[in-house]
């Protein structure tokens, strides 16, 4: 790819930001100074990813009304913000998207002094290769992607990706996720390669593995594998750990395992997108989410692992000792985080995904 710069070049982003500034100038002209923001904050979050009363509690504590919109995946979040921030103050991208959005100047740096509850975060989470010094992001929740399964319908514990990628034993009862990088990344893990490989030969091999397995895969599901499992449509689903645990509460026959070949470990982060209209409130909101009690209430409701040490002290033994939430050291050693590998690799994966879906 050539990167030529021309003085005539104006990106649509900066053009939109320009018109946005004009519009903001018109609408905000009679308003007060910067320090007196409206008592609102626009939160853009994943579905089923906040405590039952968190937003109301925040309003009661600070007088700031938190309005929440939902996105289905990182791509939707990215696409919404690509042409300029439509008005969000706090967003929740995953680690690789924090990096991608930081590279694209889509995030605004955090002022750590305004977030005293940073002290609650376990020190290990304050170091992040995808965001050195935690300049743009703070950890919200973390977890794994593994296999959710119906224990009564499978033989023993399906502790290998083989059952999803390389076997006809559960033909027609398998759901994989619906995005190229995860499905192919985990196929690469099964083949013994890195989740983050950029080697076209290895990627090709993963593509061929999935194509050969396709007759046995029921569908590529977009974040609803847990529902397919709960409704009996499939018996094995590639899913996020917390999503499986949420349906496990209603159906004890459902279980979760990280396969022995390893899997992907992710971290969803709290960030303030560039051009956020209420940055002060956004800092206050992030600080509130990192509070011990608020963080514990969220973790208790959504059943994902919190990086908040103070919140963990308030959690039940059942939550803390659940290996589906907090994997053992042995399992963690086999997990890999997804790394942002540039736009060319994104394109490579998309083309492979188009071929996989076309056959």
């Amino acid at each position, binding site marked *: *790819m050539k*990167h*030529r710069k*021309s003085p005539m*070049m104006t*990106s*649509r*982003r900066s053009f939109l930001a320009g018109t946005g500034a004009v519009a903001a100038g018109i609408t905000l002209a009679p308003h007060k100074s910067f320090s007196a923001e409206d008592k609102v904050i626009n939160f853009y979050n994943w579905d089923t990813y906040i405590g039952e009363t968190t937003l109301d509690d925040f309003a009661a504590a600070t007088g700031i009304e938190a309005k929440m919109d939902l996105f289905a995946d990182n*791509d*939707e979040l*990215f*696409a919404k913000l*690509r*042409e300029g921030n439509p008005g969000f103050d706090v967003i929740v991208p995953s680690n690789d998207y924090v990096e*991608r959005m930081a*590279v*694209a100047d*889509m995030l605004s740096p955090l002022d750590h002094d305004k977030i005293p509850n940073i002290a609650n975060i376990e020190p290990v989470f304050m170091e992040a290769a995808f965001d050195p010094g935690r300049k743009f992001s703070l950890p919200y929740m973390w977890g794994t992607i593994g296999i959710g399964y119906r224990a009564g319908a499978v033989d023993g514990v399906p502790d290998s990706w083989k059952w999803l990628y390389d076997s006809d034993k559960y033909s*027609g009862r398998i759901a994989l996720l619906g*995005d*190229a990088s995860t499905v192919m990344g985990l196929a690469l893990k099964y083949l013994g390669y890195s989740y983050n490989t950029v080697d076209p030969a290895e990627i090709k091999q993963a593509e061929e593995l999935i194509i050969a397995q*396709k007759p046995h*895969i*029921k*569908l*590529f599901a*977009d974040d609803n594998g847990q529902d397919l499992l709960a*409704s*009996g*449509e499939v018996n094995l689903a590639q899913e996020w750990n917390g999503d499986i645990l949420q349906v496990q509460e209603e159906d004890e026959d459902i279980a979760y395992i990280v396969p022995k070949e390893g899997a992907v470990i992710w971290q969803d982060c709290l960030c303030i997108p560039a051009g956020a209209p209420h940055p002060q409130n956004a800092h206050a909101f992030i600080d509130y989410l990192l509070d011990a009690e608020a963080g514990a209430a969220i973790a208790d409701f959504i059943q994902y692992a919190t990086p908040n040490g103070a919140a963990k002290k308030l959690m039940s033994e059942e939550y803390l000792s659940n290996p589906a939430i907090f994997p053992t050291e042995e399992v963690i050693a086999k997990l890999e985080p997804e790394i942002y590998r540039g*736009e060319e690799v*994104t*394109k490579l994966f*998309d*083309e492979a*995904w*188009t*071929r*996989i*879906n*076309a*056959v």
Partner: protein
Amino acid sequence: MDHWRDHKLAFWVFAIPGTAWLVVFFLAPLAIVWALSFGENISITQTRVTGTLENYGRALLTPVYLQVIWKSVWLSALATAGCLLIAYPVAFLISFVGARWKMILLAAIILPFWINLLIRTYALIAVFRTRGFVNFGLEWVYETLFLDRLFGPFQPLELLYNNFAVGAGLIYVFMPFMVLPLYASIERLDKSLLEASLDLGAGQFTTFWRVTVPLTMPGIVSGIILVFIPMLGSFLIPDLLGGTNAQMIGNVIERQFKSANDYPFGAALSFLLMYATFAALALRAYAAGRRSAAQV
């Protein structure tokens, strides 16, 4: 009728809002997408229009994209044919029943159309899935007839997450667009012509085939156009109802604007579809022109 030049003011008063709407909300965005199809990505979020033909080259020379377009064409054609086969008798029925029933039947066709597409598609999932209404119904019939004692327990049909589900979903969602133009043209049909045909010795079948169908051809053609073109670009239905090979070109285009983050390529694929549609419409206009010329 008066000529528009005699009432210039009235003409412009009526013409300007619609024209402005068309330009601002249709032609301008379309022009932006068209320009984008000749562009390249210069950073994660920036594209520049350079006049390159690379996007079209990639779409036409990489076999998989033509393959997906071809699949979308035949699936849409099949679903359009299904729509026509179901809609024609329905439209016929509506135009021959009394006024009271006409209202009820038309409402039955139009009412579902007022419900959001996404919700109707999710409703189809509840109908088709393994533990869905179709399978419950079949199971009930199966057990009522004691077939389970003869052939063993009921095996639910795999109706969801395959091409059948996508086709059924397309037919269901686009049905009103087929019924309404057909109904309009059948309603206009001079019924005495049918009687004449029967009186003069043609059977029911011949009358239908040689009188009714040719006379309602305008409705058939507009129905096909109204249904086939949006089907070709649909992405939600294959996404929700389809299995691992349900991908239509709409899904590929959607991905270019989301996960693949390649707006120029997505724009080029959209416009390839548009060019093909224009070509088909032009061909139809040409054929219609030749036919009317032949009749003169």
